[in-house]
Structure formats: C-alpha cells, structure tokens
C-alpha cells in the first residue's frame, strides 16, 4: 500500500528524481522487472522460450518442408551442415553440399557421402510446399530453404521425412500441452484450494485428504493406466485433451495446497476483515482482495509446473500410450529412438530430446528469475 502512495507522489513530482529516489518511486512492477533483469539466466531462458513459442505458433512457415512429405532417396539422411566457406573462399550466402547415397559393399549399410562439386545456396523466404496457416491462411512461403536440392538441417527419419520440420511442428503440440495442462490445474487448484483455505472446517479437511490421497499414488503408473484407458478410436484432438486432463488430475494438487496455505493466513488479515465488515461477499473478498496479494507467487509456481507437464507428455508418448503417430510431438518423435541399434547408426534421432531439455531448462531459469523478482524488496 505504502508503495502505491509513493508511486503516485512520484508522478506528481516528476521534475527531478535522483537515482536513489528512483527506487522509492518505482511501481511494484517496475521493481520486479528491474530485479528480473539482473537474473541473466532468466533473461536467456525468456528469449529461448520466446523463440520456441514463436516457432511453434508459426510452425508451418518456419519449417522448410511438409512433415508428411517423404524423400525416399534420403532415408535416414544425416544432418546437412551449413557452410560459409568452400575452396573459392568465403560466401556471404550460406550453402549446403549435396549428399549422395552409397552402400557400404561389406556391411550393406547406407552411407551418405558429401558431394563437394554441387552446392545449394540457402535463401530466406522461399516458396515451397503449400500449407494452411492455423487452418485459415493459405500459403507456400517458408522462412528458409533451397531453390534446388534439399536442406535437412537435422537429418531425416526412417521414412525420409525432414526431422527439423517435424521437430518444429512437434513443438506446437508439446509446448501447448504444457500450457493448457497448467491452466487446467490452475483453474482447479485455485477454486478447490481457495474453497479449502477460505472456508476451512470440514470442507478443508476432506479436500486435504483427497489431495494427500492423490499425491500418495505413484504418478507415472497412474498416468499410464489412465492414458491406456483412452479409447483407441478417439480422434487425435480428443486424445490431446484427454492427456491434458489426465496430467491436470495430479497437477492441481500442488497449486491447491499453496493457495490454501496463503488464504489461511490472509483471511485473518485486517484488510480482509475490513472488507467483510464493509459488506463485501466472499467471492469479492477472495478475488478482489486476497488473490491479488499473492498472484505473483502463483505465476511463479505455474512457470515451474509447465516443465513437469511437458516431461510427462513426452514420457507417455514415448511409451506409446500418450499421443500416437501421425500426431507429432517431441515424445512421439523420440519413440522412434527406442531401438538402440538405429540410434547408434543415426544419433540425430535423439535430437528432439535436446529440444525437450532446452525448453525445460529455459522454463526453470525463467521460473527462478520470476521467483526472485516476485519479492523485489528482499
């Protein structure tokens, strides 16, 4: 409260504010932002997440190829390297060399040889396969590509499909399932935890026992059992929401506990009492007075819950009981890497895992930064 008054004063006396004074007149959010900026890893994480989500939203545009397009001449092709130099020296426009399939005469394994005589320059904004962005806008423009030949940045899979495009498409599913799952758990946790903490008594006791019970079950086996019970004839979109709901079943308990704990202490505060005496109803007291006072804390918790959700979806899909092909998620892509012999020959099949790790690290860093920032006076 005092902070708000000070910031209002600050606006009036805008004239000359010394550096030290700036801290006193800054608003809550300015202080948080300032604190957040100091956390370098959080900034890096934030930028990574921004790029990832942007790529996921615009995946049709970012990926150079259609994800179902099969390049049968290039089964299990290794990643093609982008070059700036060749024998002639430096080129401003990067290019890739052509790759040629050869058979090892003794082992009959596929070997891709780089053909240095032919190079394909890379261009931004090339026209390629047709798509419908968000099922709304038709287009054939891609962020990058070659005019002739192919560019498989991260190699191809067993059917000769471009891994990079598939990973980008998969990020749309994997990253969104985390967010939707968290919002579901958020809604559940907030309402149930709120009721538990605000009303207390019997209701509180029952809800707490239910939470304890849900948390005492081993999560992965429970998820496995529930996910396996989803009818096999369901459409991908139904399975997607089914999985999200299954993840949220456990996810909400954590948040509900936090909300309950905070509400239990806050409802005894003077300002809550004052609101009650002034005639405000419960709904208004909870949403207008109590929730805002720990909203930042909840946002931090949400950021730290997303990685768990992403990980859970990846694990289930990897096991073959979550999302199933032809849906592409990081988990379904990784399930191609279950056979160690194919991984040994084509290690790039593990690359979706790198994206999983980077996304989770980024979320954790941002969460850490937000946690520090949520309490800027510390």
């Amino acid at each position: 409260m005092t902070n708000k008054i000070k910031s209002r004063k600050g606006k009036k006396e805008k004239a000359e504010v010394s550096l030290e004074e700036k801290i006193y007149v800054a608003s809550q959010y300015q202080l948080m932002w300032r604190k957040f900026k100091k956390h370098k890893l959080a900034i890096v994480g934030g930028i990574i997440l921004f790029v990832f989500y942007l790529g996921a939203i615009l995946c049709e545009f970012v990926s150079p190829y259609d994800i179902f397009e099969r390049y049968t001449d290039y089964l299990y092709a290794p990643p093609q390297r982008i070059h700036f130099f060749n024998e002639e020296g430096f080129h401003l426009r990067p290019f890739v060399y052509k790759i040629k399939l050869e058979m090892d005469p003794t082992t009959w394994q596929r070997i891709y040889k780089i053909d240095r005589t032919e190079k394909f320059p890379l261009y931004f904004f090339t026209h390629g396969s047709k798509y419908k962005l968000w099922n709304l806008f038709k287009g054939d423009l891609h962020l990058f590509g070659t005019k002739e030949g192919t560019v498989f940045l991260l190699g191809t899979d067993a059917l000769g499909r471009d891994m990079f495009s598939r990973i980008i498409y998969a990020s749309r599913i994997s990253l969104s399932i985390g967010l939707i799952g968290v919002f579901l758990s958020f809604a559940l946790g907030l309402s149930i935890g709120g009721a538990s903490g605000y009303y207390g008594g019997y209701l509180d006791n029952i809800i707490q026992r239910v939470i304890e019970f849900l948390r005492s079950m081993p999560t992965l086996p429970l998820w496995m059992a529930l996910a396996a019970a989803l009818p096999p004839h369901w459409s991908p979109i139904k399975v997607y929401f089914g999985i999200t709901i299954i993840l949220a079943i456990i996810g909400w308990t954590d948040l509900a506990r936090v909300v309950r704990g905070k509400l239990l202490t806050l409802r005894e505060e003077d300002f809550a009492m004052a609101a009650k005496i002034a005639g405000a109803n419960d709904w208004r007291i909870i949403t207008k007075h109590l929730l805002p006072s720990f909203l930042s804390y909840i946002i931090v918790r949400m950021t730290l819950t997303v990685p768990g959700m992403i990980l859970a979806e990846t694990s289930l899909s990897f096991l073959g009981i979550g999302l199933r092909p032809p849906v592409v998620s990081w988990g379904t892509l990784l399930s191609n890497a279950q056979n160690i012999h194919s991984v040994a020959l084509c290690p790039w099949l593990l690359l979706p895992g790198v994206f999983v790790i980077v996304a989770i690290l980024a979320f954790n860093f941002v969460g850490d930064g937000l946690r520090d920032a949520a309490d800027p006076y510390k």
Partner: protein
Amino acid sequence: MLYYFLRRLIYMVITLWMVSIVAFVIIQLPPGDYLTSYIMELEEEGTEVSEAQIASLRKQYGLGQPMYSQYFHWIYNIVRYGNFGRSFEWNKPVSELIWERIMLTTIMALLATVFVFVVAIPIGIYSAVHQYSITDYFFTIVGYTGLATPNFLLALVLMFIAYKYFGVSVGGLFSPEYTQVSWSMGKVLDMFSHLWIPIIVLGTAGTAGLIRIMRGVLLDELGKQYVITARAKGVKESTLLFKYPVRVAINPIVSTIGWRLTMIISGAPIVATVLSLPTTGPLMLKALLSQDMYLAGSFFLLLCILTITGTFISDLLLALVDPRIKMES
C-alpha cells in the same frame, strides 16, 4: 507420539483402501468383462467349456453381481488367498508373474535411493562450503541439467555411448546365461554388475534436486551466529562444520527418504522399459497395451502400496527427527 503414530496409521489404512478401489476401477475400465475373453481364449485353444464350468467361474469372480460385490470378491481373494486374478495374455495366475518383478523393482529403488544420498550429501556439503567456486558452479550446472533431462533420455544416451564407443549392449538386468535359471549366488552377482546403469539413471534427477537442497540449507545454517561464535573461539574448521551445521541440515533430508523412494518408484517404469529390465514397468506397460487388466491393476495396486508405505515411514521419521511435528498434533 503414540497418538501421532496411530493417526498416521489410520490414514495409511484408509489410503490403501481407496487405492484398492482405484485399482479396481482401472481393471474395470476397458469394455467387456474378463471372463468373456477368458472363455473365448479357452475355446480358441480347442477346450470345450461347459455351462457348469462357466457358472462356477462366474461365481468365483462374482461376475453378474453388482459392482461393489465384485469389488469385495476381488479384494477378499487378494487379502485372504493372495489371488490377484488371472492374466489371460500369459494364461497364468497374476501372482505367479508379479512377485519377482516387484522384488527387483524394490531392490532397484532402494539402491537408487542410497545412491542419491551417498552422492548428493557430500557434494551438497562441498558446494556450500566452497560457495561460488568453480566446482560449485560446475555442480550447479550439472544439477540443473540433471533435473531437466528426462531420465529415459539419459538412459538412451548412456546406452548409445556404451554401444557406440565400448561396443557393449547394456540393456537388461542379467547376462543371457542367467536369464532363465533360478536364483543363485552367480545370478545375484551378475545382477549387480548390470544394475549400476539403471541406478545412475534413476538417481540422477533426485541427486540433482538433493544437492540444491543440501547446499541451500547448509548455507543458511553456516550463516548463523553460533557458527561464528564457534569459529571465533577457535574450533577446528572440520569439527565446526560436522558437529552442528551438517547435522542440522541433514535432518530434514534424511527424514524425507520415503518420499525420494516414492519418486524413484514413480519414475522407474519408463527407465525400465528403455533399458528392458525385468522389473514391473515393461510388463505393466505391455499389460496395459493389451488390456490384460488383472495384471495391470495388480501392478498398480502393489506399486501404490510400496509408495504409501514409503510415505508412512517418512512421516514417522520426520516426527522422530523434528519434535515440532509431534507437538502440533
């Protein structure tokens, strides 16, 4: 203390009972009842099933009766006779299939828990004492990455490295010559020589988390005045560290041992599937995929019992270590 113990015990029994209901619901989830598939299977094999046999089987499983009575039949058979029903995929009683796997899972989880503590506590202490040193940063980075890596991916990468650079296949828990034979000293030794990879994989995430906790708590403790006083009095640095701050910091960590166990059991199925270990995970997954529900449900029930017992033990340990919890109740 007795009151606290009794209350926890009652909670545990209630939770176990509720878990058994959940397991029963899981068994009932797929369409069609178990007996129809069983009879179909018998007929496929060419065995004639008489009406009388069907009736007696129906009676044995309590089919055709209301749900709650079917549930009591099921749970009564388990508690009284250890009869978990039949796995129609394997055509064997479930109880013949599960016990060895449950035992292996328990051994693996216990060893992984020991691994977590043995590795994490010394590193945590070291990191706290050498705060902001290069090694501290190194362990911080390793810790973050360990937390962020899904453990099945870690398993895949370890397998990949072992296969590619050392030419060995590290899946499984036994060498081929031991898989089919019964237990002997040689088999046990062989198991331990295979066990280290799953233990490292299962333990990594927990280790990473525990290093952070140990470091944080110990740093708080080291900043306290009694440490400064002791140092001012000239107590030797090692005595100063191990006599009080480490003991204080270690208490809550040791008492949450049961929760760690629970976490490890939760994460085990997927690692076991990747490494094709003969533990509960792969068989449960297979049972779920082929809707062999008595088998899947029994695994689920037993895993729940393991984790609930783990939680119960940590609750008791916590109360023993921290008198405040006893007082509260």
